[in-house]
């Protein structure tokens, strides 16, 4: 037996045979790999589906959707977590595919470059979608109306920058008030970017836009009587308008001169110089704004007082400064604010239009939800 073994050891194995065996091993490993070929295909399909879904979500978010599509959407807001979830899923698939590609001998720099661009695109798209509005929002507005003549009602609304719709009319029960200026031509393109004519302010993702209406007292009374007020867009979609309208009824004013100036983002300073002696015992704002506009302090003869110090007696020629703050900013205000007392009112109209930034859009969004 041992002889046979020795003899076998002496037999020379031809080199070509060795090559053959190596070829055999290679062939076997290739065939084994073949059985796993379905994996890249499935991954490609998954990536395509995920990216397609992502774009489909963005198209649903867009403003150019037609009326039927928007009724399906209702007013639901898609959570940003969904966008980020899809983005992270796509990114992990991309990383996985890139790793496999590099392992299988693809050009490393090219694969990494493509993966980096895709990841950046996905991340940026998720961030972009997170800031998109499902439907335009109306900025809460407080308006004071005079008893006589025509009254202007200015309402600002926020739309996504790619939303080409515009406000057509205001609806409250059976009252339909058409917008006061010509709006049929809104396709304004500047440098290839859509720029609506009624744009008030340009933000990163949204436009703050302006809708202006005119109405007499009888129409306004009807609007006041209705429960909800809506703005109607050019594609007949209704958006709720949080309006508070009050009628100016303060005829008995103490004679005075007044000045007002805004103080930062959410405050205002009003100063009065009295033209007769008077006593005041309360801070006055229209009842609808009572919880939204607060008197922080008032200054007489360089002395600071708060609302606890009422009543206060003022002499002719004396100056009083009120410092007020808007509590639930952002909202647009056109209302009379001041002091009231047994001698009458000491009030002036305060106009305040919020200067928007991204976080304030978020606030309006939260207030609407």
């Amino acid at each position: 037996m041992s002889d046979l073994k020795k003899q076998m050891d002496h037999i020379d194995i031809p080199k070509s045979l060795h090559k053959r065996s190596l070829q055999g091993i290679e062939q076997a490993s290739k065939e084994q790999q073949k059985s796993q070929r379905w994996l890249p295909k499935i991954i490609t399909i998954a990536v395509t589906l995920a990216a397609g879904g992502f774009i489909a979500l963005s198209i649903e978010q867009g403003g150019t959707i037609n009326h039927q599509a928007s009724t399906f959407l209702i007013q639901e807001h898609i959570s940003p977590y969904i966008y980020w979830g899809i983005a992270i899923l796509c990114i992990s698939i991309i990383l996985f595919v890139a790793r496999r590609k590099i392992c299988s001998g693809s050009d490393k720099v090219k694969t990494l470059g493509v993966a980096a661009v895709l990841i950046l695109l996905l991340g940026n798209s998720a961030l972009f979608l997170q800031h998109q509005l499902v439907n335009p929002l109306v900025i809460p507005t407080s308006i004071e109306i005079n008893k006589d003549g025509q009254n202007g009602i200015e309402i600002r609304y926020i739309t996504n920058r790619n939303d080409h719709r515009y406000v057509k009319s205001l609806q409250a029960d059976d009252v339909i008030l058409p917008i006061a200026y010509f709006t049929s031509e809104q396709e304004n393109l500047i440098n290839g970017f859509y720029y609506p004519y009624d744009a008030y302010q340009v933000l990163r993702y949204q436009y703050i836009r302006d809708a202006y209406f005119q109405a007499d007292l009888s129409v306004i009374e009807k609007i006041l009587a209705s429960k909800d007020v809506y703005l109607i867009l050019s594609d007949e979609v209704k958006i709720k308008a949080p309006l508070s309208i009050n009628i100016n009824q303060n005829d008995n004013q103490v004679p005075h001169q007044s000045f007002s100036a805004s103080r930062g983002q959410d405050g205002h300073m009003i100063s009065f110089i009295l033209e007769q002696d008077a006593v005041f015992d309360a801070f006055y704002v229209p009842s609808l704004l009572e919880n939204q506009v607060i008197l922080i302090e008032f200054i007489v003869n360089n002395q600071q007082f708060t609302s606890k110090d009422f009543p206060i007696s003022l002499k002719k020629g004396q100056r009083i400064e009120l410092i007020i703050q808007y509590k639930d900013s952002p909202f647009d205000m056109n209302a009379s604010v001041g002091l009231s007392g047994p001698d009458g009112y000491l009030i002036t109209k305060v106009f305040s239009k919020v200067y928007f930034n991204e976080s304030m859009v978020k606030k309006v969004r939260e207030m609407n939800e």
Partner: protein
Amino acid sequence: MNETKDHVKLLQWFAIALFLQLLYLNVFKYVNILQDILVYGAYIKSLSYSRQVTPVKKYIVIAIVLALVSNIFSQQLLFYWSTVFIAGIDLLIIMEFGKILVSLEQRYNAHGPTARVIKKYVIIVFAVIVSWTMLSNLPRDWQIGLLMLGAFLLFAVNIRLFFHVLSLRKHVKKRSFVVTYL
């Protein structure tokens, strides 16, 4: 001999494609589709003179589909994606042609700067593409600025490559005459 002629033709059509890319026809709506068809047609014609196997045709099909889709659906996010994708695919096509150019240069002993030109081209275009991925989250003025800067850089690198391809073509043509008269 025939091969050299083929190489001259390849470079000629590649130069034509690059020249067509320099024209900014995008100002007219839908004309960019015509431009794409002309540019990609010139690429395909150029490739028909090469025996190397490249995935360029696949890239071209994807780019044309993307250009069509982005023209049909005017959606903001789609615009950003298609802008980046089309620029990326154009870069991949140039990278494939870069390989052909380098091999031609070696073959005809032209000690030219092809590898360096292509490397710079790739780096600059990649930087432009990366900056364009961020377009969707930038303020309006920045968006316009970045698009203009990117377009200017693409124009500059394309014109550099165009002149380089012309000089390479001249060199290859010269070599072919040398062969003829010997």
